[in-house]
């Protein structure tokens, strides 16, 4: 097995679970998410140069996954409503967490995506910027707006 395949396999073990979770949240369909995960690594194997020069291979893979997910979503738009691009987090027993869950579900898709990549996947601001192909300042702004919105929702509920 060549070095590049071994490297990709190691990345698959390290980043694969996060990518699968990300794709599953975007689709809600486990099988579609698994297909997209495989396709992400196949595309990565086709673009070895990108992987070599990427500052963060993790962010680079997230970028590929995001683009593939968008393309796949466009293809099945006729049968899938746009609101289901990002799935809502699962319900919890804790009323306070349930409140936050609903507030997260109400966030604009762009803010929610940035928040998920930061809080769930642990990507840095620059990695999120690389994955979403947006400036770092935009990432910071989206995250700040998202936290402000969540805080406002919680404040409303407390009152």
């Amino acid at each position, binding site marked *: 097995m060549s070095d590049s395949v071994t490297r990709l396999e190691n990345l698959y073990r390290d980043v694969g679970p996060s990518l699968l979770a990300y794709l599953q949240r975007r689709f809600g369909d486990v099988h579609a998410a698994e297909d997209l995960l495989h396709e992400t*690594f196949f595309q990565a194997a086709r673009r070895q140069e990108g992987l070599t020069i990427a500052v963060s291979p993790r962010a680079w893979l997230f970028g590929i996954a995001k683009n593939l997910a968008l393309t796949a979503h466009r293809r099945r738009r006729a049968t899938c409503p746009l609101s289901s691009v990002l799935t809502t987090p699962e319900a919890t027993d804790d009323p306070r967490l349930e409140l*936050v869950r609903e507030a*997260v579900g109400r966030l604009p898709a762009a803010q929610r995506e940035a928040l998920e990549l930061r809080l769930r996947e642990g990507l840095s601001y620059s990695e999120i910027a690389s994955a979403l192909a947006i400036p770092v300042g935009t990432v910071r702004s989206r995250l700040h707006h998202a936290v402000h919105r969540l805080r406002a929702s919680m404040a409303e509920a407390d009152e």
Partner: protein
Amino acid sequence: MDREALDRLLLDRSLGALSSDVEALLAAQIETDPSAQQRWSEYASVTTAARQVLHSNTVSSLPPFPSARIQGLERTRRQLVLFRRVAGLAAALVVGTVLGSWWVRPAAPALQPDKRPAFVHQASGDTERAGRSEKSDFWSIRRLHQTAQASARDGATRVIWDSPVSRPRIGGEL
């Protein structure tokens, strides 16, 4: 520090995006500012709750790595690289051969000593008469004709010299 800048830093801290030294400086700043402490606790509780909510999603187990597909791609890529190298080498050889044959093509042949114009004395009436005498010495007409014919066979240029008092001229084929 103004409130907006402090808020931005507090948000970044709640999102875990500050470096340790900046965070230590901010912590020292918050300790002296009760309102900042209040805001920090609000941001921290929001992001902690959001983190818990986002992590609660169940994810299916990771499917096996698609090694067969990716190795197939690698094989194809290696074959393509090999083909490109061979094709490049072949193209370089062809170009080299063509250029080389053009560059070192044989030069125009130099005038050989035996190709030098032969001096032919055109037979005049007197010399014809002299030729009929069938002399075969050096200046005989017969020998001169033989020389001229030999030169004509070799493709030599004919020089016509009718008379010793006139200039020789270049003529056509014998």
